[in-house]
């Protein structure tokens, strides 16, 4: 057993045994240590110019999300408008990174985002449980891509993962990646169901080895969703993967991130774990819905010097 991840073996996914050997050879994660590192970073105090930069950056990395059974075309249309112009009173306010919807609403989003530069992201693979036959999941992906999705947020098979069938998880991601064609693939680990940080690290590596463009914490449908320490472990994974000669892979924290304070803590985590290279919407995302308005109110406070209120941001 060795800590070093300086090289990824060429045959890493040649068999269940080879993949298991590799994953279980990754260094362990001490839960208490990871928690306390994340908690220490959460005490960073972001003020004045740094806060302005961070709030605007937070807005630009948001995947503005609606994933409800009650979603309609109207709801998605409103969300697209909000994403393109978060603060109608201020033209300097940046746009969000993407609008994230269910596959059947991709076309609507595509239509209303034309010319904005905002990406259309769609969850797929029988989100959020992923409990469907593989052909069904692949069809789900292809439909979303065909409807114009730029990005696909898939869920891994947590059942297979937890019962140690790592190669099955890997193969499924490989197939989904193929079905994505040119669309970017975000792989949701659903860390709230993985139970340990060791599992988060292993699942991150499976996803990266299988071709993920992003690894994402959560569906937002399971509690806990994104947490700082889980995101820390995933950031360490993408850092180590690149160090080991792999690609640069992005990280998306999703679910439960509602306040500016939360968002800034995630940016601090990125800043101090992987640095500048990940501090852009190409490599880091926050999946959220209500967060945006809190960021806007904080932004107005910085600009005007007084506190804002919910009546001064739009609710769609």
């Amino acid at each position, binding site marked *: 057993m060795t800590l070093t991840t300086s090289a990824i073996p060429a045959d890493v996914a040649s068999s269940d045994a080879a993949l298991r050997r590799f994953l279980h050879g990754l260094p362990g994660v*001490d*839960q*208490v*240590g990871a*928690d306390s590192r994340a908690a220490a970073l959460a005490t960073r105090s972001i003020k004045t110019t740094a806060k302005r930069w961070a709030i605007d950056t937070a807005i630009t990395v948001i995947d503005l999300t609606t994933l409800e059974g009650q979603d309609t075309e109207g709801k998605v249309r409103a969300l697209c408008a909000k994403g393109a112009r978060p603060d109608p009173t201020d033209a300097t306010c940046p746009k969000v990174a993407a609008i994230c919807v269910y596959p059947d609403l991709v076309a609507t989003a595509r239509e209303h985002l034309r010319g904005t530069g905002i990406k259309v992201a769609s969850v797929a693979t029988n989100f959020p449980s992923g409990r469907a036959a593989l052909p069904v999941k692949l069809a789900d992906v292809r439909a979303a891509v065909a409807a114009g999705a730029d990005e696909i947020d898939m869920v891994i098979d947590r059942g297979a993962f937890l019962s140690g069938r790592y190669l099955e998880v890997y193969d499924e991601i490989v197939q989904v990646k193929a079905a994505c064609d040119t669309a970017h693939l975000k792989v949701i680990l659903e860390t709230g169901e993985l*139970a*340990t940080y060791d599992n988060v690290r292993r699942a991150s590596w499976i996803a990266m080895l299988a071709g993920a463009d992003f690894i994402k914490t959560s569906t937002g449908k399971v509690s806990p969703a994104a947490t700082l320490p889980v995101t820390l472990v995933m950031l360490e994974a993408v850092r180590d993967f690149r160090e080991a000669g792999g690609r640069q892979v992005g990280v998306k924290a999703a679910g439960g991130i509602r306040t500016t304070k939360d968002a800034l803590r995630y940016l601090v985590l990125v800043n101090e774990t992987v640095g500048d290279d990940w501090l852009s919407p190409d490599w880091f995302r926050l999946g959220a819905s209500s967060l945006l308005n809190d960021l806007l109110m904080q932004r107005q406070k910085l600009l005007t010097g007084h506190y804002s209120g919910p009546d001064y941001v739009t609710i769609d």
Partner: protein
Amino acid sequence: MSDRTRLDVRKTYKLFIGGAFPRSESGRSYQVTDSGANFIANAALASRKDARDAVVAARSAFKKWSTASAYNRGQVLYRVAEMLEGRRDQFVAEVASAEGIHNGEHVVDAAIDRWVWYAGWSDKIAHVLGSSNSVAGPYFDFSIPEPTGVVAIIAPQESSLLGLVSVISPVIAAGNTAVVIASEKRPLPAITLSEVLATSDLPGGVVNVLTGKTSEISPWLASHADVNAIDLTGAAPELATQLQIAAAENLKRVYRPDDDNPDWLADPGLSRLQAFVETKTVWHPIGV
């Protein structure tokens, strides 16, 4: 057949170092008399080099003795008590001769019982001197007593067996090894005790016994950098202070009883066990 015509075979009293009985490397000896100033024997007059050799023996025995299970140490010490009991009459005679007392049986019985008492402590010290610590965080935190190391013991000058047993047994029950300077004027029970130790299951070097001049040998032990603690019980006040100053050089643990003339028959309490253990605290996170 008459015993009266038979000349008895005398014992040669030697040092006890590393489980063996060498003469002093200096080749010196001194006369030991009984309480009536009659010659009894020539005892070895240990030198600084004997002290040095004794420390080497104690240090090399430390690893095995200190890591033996407490249960095992208790068994070994109890075995010593069994052997003491077997030599009871000899000890009674020696103590009576050395100390000029008539209730030798009483003292020897107390000494054997003292040894048994400390034998039983070996696997209970951790209960009483250790702790589990409720720290405010996700950590398992516990403190355990561990033996200090090599302990130099200046045995009581008056109480040649009960006092001697009362200072040696707590030190080794806790897992230390010892270099003992026996009572200068009454060393013979210490040598006989050494014979008991040598024929019990106690590994060689756990207890080493030097006879000779306390004031000559003890400064070498007090200043020895590989001795971890010193028991000054048998050192006269002025000597004890000098030794304490020398012991400060490597910050030895120093045990100097409050009472210069202790009642060895009294309940010894825990102080001698506490004096020669270190407390080690270990932390480990609690996580999944």
